[in-house]
């Protein structure tokens, strides 16, 4: 037989599922956002990550209940599709899709400075601040180095995922374990440096005062909004539920395990980073904050790799890269699900005839991601967080609606103390959304404008598709269903009927 064949996707276990969630949450968030959070909240950045963990825990309960009851991949979109009418579920998918694409841009933008820092550690390029632009001989123009590198990173991963299914699946587990190990090394050496007595040794004096300047405890709220994206991971877990073995038990477990472990690791890393570098120093280093902290206290006389800090910088490069890979896959899966449900054009919901990948979905997502790498990192973080907040509100709403309308639906995992968690989830997410929008009004109107623009575009796309479909069905087509007697007209199993 002449045709080539591909390997079907493998089954994922509890560890794999947990690691997929943690991979996205720990990956880029911790390296990219810590510096930005310290800039807004000072040493209280530790509270920021703890509180965000607590806020998302309520939504985590909702995800666990829905994932156990609705056996479909596609994450929050699949739940909304099952629960709400066409408009709401479309907007849910549309927003979630964007959240992932912008997260892709964010991770790519976090990748770039860390990659430059890695090159710098080994003396290939001048320090980060000195690399203004790289010359592109081909187009004889200069682009900012950061955006240029981010663009290339996205391009590479999109190309990889468009032609091969190998980058998804259980490779992620190994990657995530490596990331966690690197962070634990960072934490261990950070605490050990307390006895060193050097300038950047760990000291609790860096946490005093906890709230910088004349700010009150409320000043940390915008940082909560900005770093919310760090906890997007369990939506990612639920985009792959059908590939997980024994999902009705493993998915809720994976959600809780990844959330708990992530909060612990975040707090440890942030404590070390602030304790050594101090909040101002961390803020100054921005997206490369953790890497900068590491180079300051890691031993510098290790053979081969020379500077111990390079391990952490490598960790940052590696993490942002793998997290980028995860959201490239996640964004295309949301688009693919929408296409399959007939909520985007049909070809987005189809596999490529040769590569077996959701080719069109990946390419469409890539366009937005590539366009977004010119944004400032903070805008990308803010927009992605905003869209995750909005989608999480819908997910919590879905739990309540399903409980009311379909009481008999089988729920292998039922959250405790219903309806308190989803109501609190909605309330707290709304508060954060409000805070974030207020903050954006003052500091980042571009992000707000783009946010509104995307929602508007969604409205247009929805009605354009509706219109196209209705004018399609007016011309009688040869397509099947309803008036034909066979249940499934195009497929007949050779088993014979009655």
């Amino acid at each position: 037989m002449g045709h080539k064949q591909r390997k079907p996707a493998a089954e994922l276990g509890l560890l794999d599922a947990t690691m997929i969630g943690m991979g996205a949450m720990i990956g880029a968030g911790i390296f990219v956002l810590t510096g930005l959070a310290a800039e807004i909240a000072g040493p209280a950045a530790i509270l920021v990550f703890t509180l965000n963990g607590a806020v998302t825990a309520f939504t985590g309960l909702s995800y666990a209940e829905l994932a156990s009851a609705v056996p479909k991949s596609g994450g929050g979109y699949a739940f909304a599709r099952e629960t709400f009418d066409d408009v709401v579920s479309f907007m849910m998918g549309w927003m979630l899709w964007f959240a992932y694409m912008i997260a892709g841009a964010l991770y790519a933008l976090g990748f770039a400075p860390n990659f430059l820092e890695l090159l710098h550690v080994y003396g290939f390029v001048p320090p980060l601040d000195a690399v203004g632009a790289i010359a592109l001989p081909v187009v004889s123009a200069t682009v900012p180095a950061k955006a240029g590198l981010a663009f290339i990173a996205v391009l590479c991963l999109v190309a990889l995922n468009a032609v091969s299914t190998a980058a998804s699946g259980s490779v992620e587990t190994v990657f995530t374990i490596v990331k966690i190990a690197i962070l634990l090394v960072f934490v261990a050496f950070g605490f050990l440096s307390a006895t060193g007595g050097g300038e950047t040794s760990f000291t609790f004096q860096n946490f005093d005062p906890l709230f910088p300047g004349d700010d009150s405890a409320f000043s940390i709220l915008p940082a909560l909004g900005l770093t919310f994206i760090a906890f997007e991971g369990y939506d990612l877990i639920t985009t792959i539920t059908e590939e997980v073995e024994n999902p009705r038990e493993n998915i809720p477990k994976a959600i809780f395990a990844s959330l708990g472990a992530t909060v612990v690791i975040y707090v440890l890393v942030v404590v070390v980073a602030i304790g050594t570098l101090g909040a101002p120093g961390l803020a100054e280093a921005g997206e490369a904050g953790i890497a900068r902290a590491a180079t300051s206290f890691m031993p510098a006389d290790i053979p081969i790799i020379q500077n111990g800090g390079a391990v952490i910088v490598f960790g940052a490069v590696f993490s942002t890269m793998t997290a980028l890979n995860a959201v490239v896959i996640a964004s295309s899966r949301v688009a693919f699900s929408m296409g399959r449900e007939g909520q985007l054009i049909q070809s987005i919901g189809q596999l490529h005839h040769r590569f077996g990948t959701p080719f069109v979905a990946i390419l469409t997502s890539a366009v937005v991601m590539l366009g977004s790498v010119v944004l400032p990192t903070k805008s990308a973080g803010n927009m992605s967080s905003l869209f995750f907040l909005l989608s999480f509100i819908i997910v919590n709403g879905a739990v309540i609606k399903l409980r009311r309308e379909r009481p008999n639906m089988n729920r292998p995992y039922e959250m405790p103390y219903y309806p308190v968690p989803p109501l609190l989830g909605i309330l707290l997410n709304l508060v954060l959304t409000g805070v974030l929008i207020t903050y954006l009004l003052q500091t980042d109107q571009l992000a707000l404008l783009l946010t509104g623009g995307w929602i508007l575009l969604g409205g247009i796309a929805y009605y354009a598709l509706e219109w196209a479909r209705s004018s399609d069905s007016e011309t009688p087509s040869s397509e099947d269903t309803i008036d034909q007697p066979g249940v499934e007209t195009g497929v007949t199993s050779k088993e014979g009927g009655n």
Partner: protein
Amino acid sequence: MAPLRTVIAGGGRVGKRTAELLDERGHDLVVIENDAETVAELSDEYFATVIEGDATRPSVLSQARLDRANVVAALTARTGTNLAICMAANHLEPAVETVMRTERSVGDEYDGLVDGVIFPETAGARAAANAIERDVRTLQAVTGTLDMMEITVADQAPVAGKSLTDVALPRGSLVVSAADGHRIAGSETVLEPGHTYIVAVESDVSDEVMNLMRGL
């Protein structure tokens, strides 16, 4: 075409296996089942949303969201129950297609009332006859989890109009016959939209094959 949304009433042996097959082909399923133990088994399988309750009760039946369903299949062991479920479904949602399982061969008796009637014991009896007389077998008895399917290539499907050389089907699937079953398929065989092909498919890749050939 979009996936079919099918509501199956009765998640016993027939209902469960039907749900499984349709799930493998990429469709959306809701199963209504009264027995708590069977409900637990079904949710372990994780191929359908499960509603626990008596499907003859409209308050339970409507929780399956009939307004969005394409087909309601009543597959419990009792003819009367199945007929009642189909009638209730049609009353709640006139556009929905109904299929009922019967306890014995009924001919065309229910034709005006439901859209399809199945009597699964025929297939079972054929399998038994195949096991007794081993030299002659119908296809279904020689295949384990392997399915022989006749698939019509949809107009908008990814593989429509492409030759087998240009197409990479997942491992575990094989196009056996060329268009409309007169020849064995070769690398030059073109998958014409609207034509029917016999395809051997292992169950774990049938959703991929369905996406490629049916576009769902």
